[in-house]
């Protein structure tokens, strides 16, 4: 009997084990839903699969009576646009400030307490202030994502930069690099994959902030729709929307992982292949 840490499932095994929890969750939902529906056939909390399929067909493949749009796609586009902008800005900030904080002692001394403090401010509580400064339109939603996600990215990247072996920085200096070159050729390339990992971790929060922002004032977007139909507890729309958001986020997660594997072959170099 080999130790369990040395035993690896094969390709098929990995698929099977990976799928198992999903199947269990689906089955659990099915049973719970059936139980509730037996009691009240109109129950809205856990609608049957058929109701969700019908709801999706309605919002995704039938033009809306009032606006003529395909609601789900219009919502998705609007949300992805905001999310992309927000994450883009947050990433840029994280790169500049995070690497700065990790690498330059003066920047670290100056910003690290402030960023730590900032990351603790619950953004939802100061929303009114955001509204005034950034208006009620797209901008404030993007800003909410940035405010919510950037401090985490910055701090994580700063921590990772500090953790880099000092030998490498010294080596680069003996090769004649100035600070800017060190950033460009030594730190940045090694931090980009870490940044992608951090981004993966913050996809969940980013969606959360987006949804919250859309819940407050919007005319379209996935979060807007969820909070709108929550008004009459249309879980048959909410659950597919939540699943769709989860899927989108998961796809971004996969994309980022693929990006890492693709663009940074050195990450896996020398690791045992199986």
């Amino acid at each position, binding site marked *: 009997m080999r130790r369990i840490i040395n035993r690896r499932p094969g390709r098929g095994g990995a698929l099977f084990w990976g799928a198992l929890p999903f199947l269990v969750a689906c089955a659990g939902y099915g049973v719970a839903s059936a139980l509730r529906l037996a009691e*009240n056939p109109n129950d809205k909390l856990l609608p049957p699969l058929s109701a969700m399929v019908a709801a999706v067909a309605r919002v995704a493949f039938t033009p809306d009576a009032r606006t003529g749009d395909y609601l789900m796609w219009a919502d998705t586009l609007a949300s992805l646009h905001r999310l992309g902008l927000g994450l883009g800005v947050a990433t840029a900030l994280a790169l500049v400030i995070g690497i700065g904080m990790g690498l330059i002692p003066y920047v670290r001394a100056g910003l690290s307490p402030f960023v730590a403090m900032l990351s603790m401010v619950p953004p939802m509580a100061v929303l009114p202030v955001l509204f005034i400064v950034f208006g009620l339109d797209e901008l404030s939603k993007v800003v909410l994502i940035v405010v919510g996600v950037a401090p985490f990215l910055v701090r994580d990247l700063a921590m990772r930069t500090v953790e880099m072996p000092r030998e490498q920085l010294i080596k680069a200096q003996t090769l004649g690099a100035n600070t800017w070159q060190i950033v460009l050729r030594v730190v940045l390339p090694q931090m980009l994959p870490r940044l992608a990992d951090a981004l993966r971790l913050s996809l969940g929060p980013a969606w959360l902030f987006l949804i919250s922002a859309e819940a407050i*004032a919007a005319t379209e977007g996935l979060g807007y729709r969820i909070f709108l139909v929550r*008004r*009459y507890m249309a879980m048959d729309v909410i659950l597919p929307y939540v699943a769709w958001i989860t899927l989108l986020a998961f796809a971004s997660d996969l994309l980022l992982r693929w990006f890492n594997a693709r663009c940074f072959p050195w990450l896996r170099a020398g690791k045992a292949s199986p």
Partner: protein
Amino acid sequence: AEKKNFRVAWSIYAGWMPWGYAADSGIMKKWADKYGIKVEIVQINDYVESINQYTAGAFDGCVMTNMDALTIPAAGGVDTTALISGDYSNGNDGIVLKKGKTLKDIKGQKVNLVELSVSHYLLARALDSVGMKEKDVTVVNTSDADIVSAYSSSADVTATVTWNPQLSEVAKTAGSTMVFDSSKVPGEIIDLMVVNTGTMRDNPSFAKALVGAWYEIMGLMTKPDTAEGKAALEAMAKASGTDLAGYKQQLVTTKMFYTPAEGASFAASPELVKTMDLVRTFSFDHGLLGEGAKSRDAVGILFPGGTVLGDVKNVKLRFDDAVMKQAADGKL
């Protein structure tokens, strides 16, 4: 099924503050003890969540408006009885404009409101009264907790529909005009205490205890000069985050039915049928009766006289005056 313990949810609103007082003052306990049951009154901050919880079965009763009672629990297949018609909004909901002095000026503006709520309904009724359609404005869904800050601080918010206490805050903003309010459609936005019909049928004492407690407090509120009455009003004012004067101000725009007789006769009035017809039409047009609803008749509404609006075989919302009548007759 018969049971002894009941849970009722309420949320903060001028016309519902007595429920909080009922719990705090022990009046609810008194009446529950009288019928040998226990009633827990739970305050929920988020109004919609309280209705959802009721609909999902976490509560036996809940406060809500007539429109929400139709579109959430009733449309969700939970057979619901409007046990107490407590009041209707008589100016508690309103439309406020920054640009423009009359309702007609709203044309083409963005209107911030809680979509699919009574505010939305009020807007529809208001537009109707001046021959406009919802297409003439752009509705921006805005959460009720943020409407004040959005309106008072953001230049691109020019029109809003909301209710009290937010309404009075919004109306105070410099240069604003209230161009329409619910007193122009009296009796259409009704604040109810609804209970699960099945629970009520199996446990008549539950309904009796609630009605009894409610009208005892109503009695106190009509006597603000007595020490007890004053204490009650002050406690309610405090709980709603304002002072006595402020709370009285809110009550001015709320048409309370202080006596059970008033409540019973309102529930039995033919106007209520007309109102509910308007409400269900609005709800159906906005898809609130659920996706399975083929027409506005999908959900049946039963009125005290036995009148039914909509599908007789699918009656899910029942206006009831029986218990209020018993209270009026002093039989509780």
